[in-house]
């Protein structure tokens, strides 16, 4: 287990240096949250849909073993080759072996958070295979050598002028051009050439139907389809939790997904892949990567119900103001903070603390994951396992001692008020982590206990 170089607070500190950017980022994401609300209110049975989606996913988790077998059998019957991967290394090796066997050295990839988690691009590039991310936001992030900062809006933390500069540097557009339509058109022409020349395409998976062995990929740009339908080899990678039992359940999930994500009634493209086309070869990789372990944690298994809409990020006051990259994990925001500790508790020990526990994430979640309660529970596990930061452990210990007896409580309270009133510089300095970005409060002259001792008995009749 490696320790992240900088924790969420330190990385967020970098992000908030540019106040104008933070305000823009905050406002842009809040607007998407508002669009989600408008879309949800247009569906009178919205809450019933969320409840049904939650129950379907509960059923999936409770019967995942059999659904995986059913799905595998149907996919195989449909003429698609199924592979199983326990971890990133195994997944990446499978992709590489498929390409190598065909002598393919270039691949186009549509959005797949799983392959980001696996660091597939780096793995393939080291072995001489060129990979291009075709989702526009992911393409921009790839050019800039950064991971996505949001699972639905990969470069939401970047301003258009910065993107214009990236295009100028890497693609030779005119310097200073930052108009979104002009830049998008340029990328369209450039990536069109990529699509028509790649023999292999990789896609993610949104929903995998056990009953029929087909799987659904949702995009707005059409990039997954442009890659897949021109390819001679199509590879799709999915986490084992992406299964749904029956095709009719797509009606529930497709009504919820885009409305929750961006406020659209449905993504522009909801592609149902079932069989290879004539002359094409299709592969599906079922990846565990910690999912089966998370399934065994009763307090945290509900995180596997996630359909990756990103609504918990858009609504989160901490995410909106700290930016996705500060979470140093492929999936950022509240859902990322409850998924990541399962993968590596030491490295991600800071993430469950990057929350106000306001509960807004749980309120917008289309599959009703109790995200904020899980954040609270992860904090307890992380402290018990000894992974919490020293300052937090010391603070909690000091608080426990203070609250352990009326005498210590009253003594510490007095001392605190005396310090704030007489030598405020002793706490208003950079050695006090609480003082960062905030002033210490004005101190009352006396505590409630002291006030009550003087007045309480006279005034209570």
């Amino acid at each position: 287990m490696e320790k992240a170089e900088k924790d969420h607070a330190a990385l967020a500190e970098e992000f908030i240096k540019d106040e104008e950017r933070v305000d823009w980022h905050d406002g842009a994401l809040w607007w998407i949250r508002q669009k989600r609300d408008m879309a949800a209110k247009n569906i009178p049975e919205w809450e019933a849909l969320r409840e049904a989606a939650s129950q379907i996913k509960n059923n999936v988790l409770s019967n995942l073993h059999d659904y995986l077998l059913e799905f595998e059998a149907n996919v195989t019957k449909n003429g698609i080759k199924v592979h199983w991967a326990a971890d990133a290394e195994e997944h990446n090796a499978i992709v590489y072996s498929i390409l190598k066997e065909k002598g393919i050295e270039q691949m186009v990839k549509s959005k797949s958070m799983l392959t980001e988690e696996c660091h597939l691009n780096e793995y393939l590039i080291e072995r001489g295979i060129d990979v291009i991310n075709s989702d526009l936001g992911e393409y921009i992030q790839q050019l800039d050598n950064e991971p996505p900062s949001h699972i639905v809006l990969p470069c939401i933390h970047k301003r258009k002028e910065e993107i214009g500069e990236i295009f100028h540097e890497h693609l030779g557009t005119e310097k200073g051009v930052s108009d979104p339509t002009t830049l998008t058109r340029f990328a369209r022409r450039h990536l069109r050439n990529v699509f028509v020349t790649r023999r292999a395409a990789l896609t993610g998976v949104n929903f995998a139907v056990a009953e029929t062995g087909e799987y659904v990929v949702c995009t707005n740009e059409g990039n997954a389809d442009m890659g897949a339908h021109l390819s001679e080899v199509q590879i799709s990678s999915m986490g084992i939790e992406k299964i749904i039992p029956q095709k009719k359940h797509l009606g529930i999930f497709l009504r919820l997904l885009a409305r929750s994500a961006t406020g659209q009634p449905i993504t522009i493209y909801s592609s149902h892949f079932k069989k290879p086309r004539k002359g094409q070869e299709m592969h599906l990789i079922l990846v565990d990567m910690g999912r089966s372990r998370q399934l065994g944690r009763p307090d945290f298994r509900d995180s596997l119900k996630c359909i990756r809409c990103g609504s918990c990020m858009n609504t989160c006051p901490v995410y909106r103001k700290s930016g996705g990259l500060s979470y140093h994990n492929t999936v950022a925001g509240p859902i990322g903070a409850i998924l990541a500790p399962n993968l590596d508790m030491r490295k991600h020990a800071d993430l469950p603390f990057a929350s106000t526990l306001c509960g807004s994430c749980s309120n917008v979640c289309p599959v009703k994951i109790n995200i904020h309660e899980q954040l609270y529970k992860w904090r307890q596990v992380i402290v018990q396992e000894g992974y919490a930061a020293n300052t937090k452990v010391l603070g909690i210990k000091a608080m426990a001692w203070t609250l352990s007896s009326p005498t210590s409580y009253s003594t510490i309270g007095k001392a605190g008020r005396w310090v704030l009133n007489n030598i405020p510089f002793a706490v208003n300095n950079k050695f006090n982590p609480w003082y960062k970005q905030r002033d210490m409060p004005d101190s009352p002259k006396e505590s409630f206990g002291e006030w009550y001792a003087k007045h309480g008995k006279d005034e209570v009749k």
Partner: protein
Amino acid sequence: MSTRERILADVLKNQPSASPLPDMSAFTGKNQNVVQTYSEVFTGIGGKAFRVKGFAEIKHLIAENFDTSQRIITSLPELSDVFERLSMDIDPHTFDDVEVAVIEAELAVAENGAVWLPEQRMGQRIVPYICQHLVVVIPAERIVPTLHEAYAKIGAGDYGFAAFIGGPSKTADIEQALVLGAHGPISMTVFVLEQDTILNTD
């Protein structure tokens, strides 16, 4: 023990006790005026909808709205006198220069504006994605209120590939500014055909 067996064993060991599937019978569309709703929703997501009476009108509107000197392909026999009938057998890459593709949908969904296209209706899978402008014909009686009715009609479906497509390709990845025409079509037009004659492509 293979990876497959190990994953399955871990899942079996760790999965919680059985939890039932919900009853979905309450989810039905109540909307009676599906044609009107469909047109409004589809326009709202950046598409163009026309209510037409027949193929003569469709031909006329295509000529009026698109550059007919460019390559226009169709899978519809009713239109193959004026446009190129698309071939099922040629290399999909050869569609790269298609300006307009005209195909027929099997279903449309009023609530979200999407049309349902199994690959047989597309001609070839790449067609509705690679063209610059997508035109879809949908007989009015095949518009259903919600996805629930759509999936009930689709059933298992005899296709290798199919898609719901609801509007022109779009992105808002650069500063949330909406741009139509990311990688797929820049525009999408739907002709809602309100007539009694049954199309012979069924």
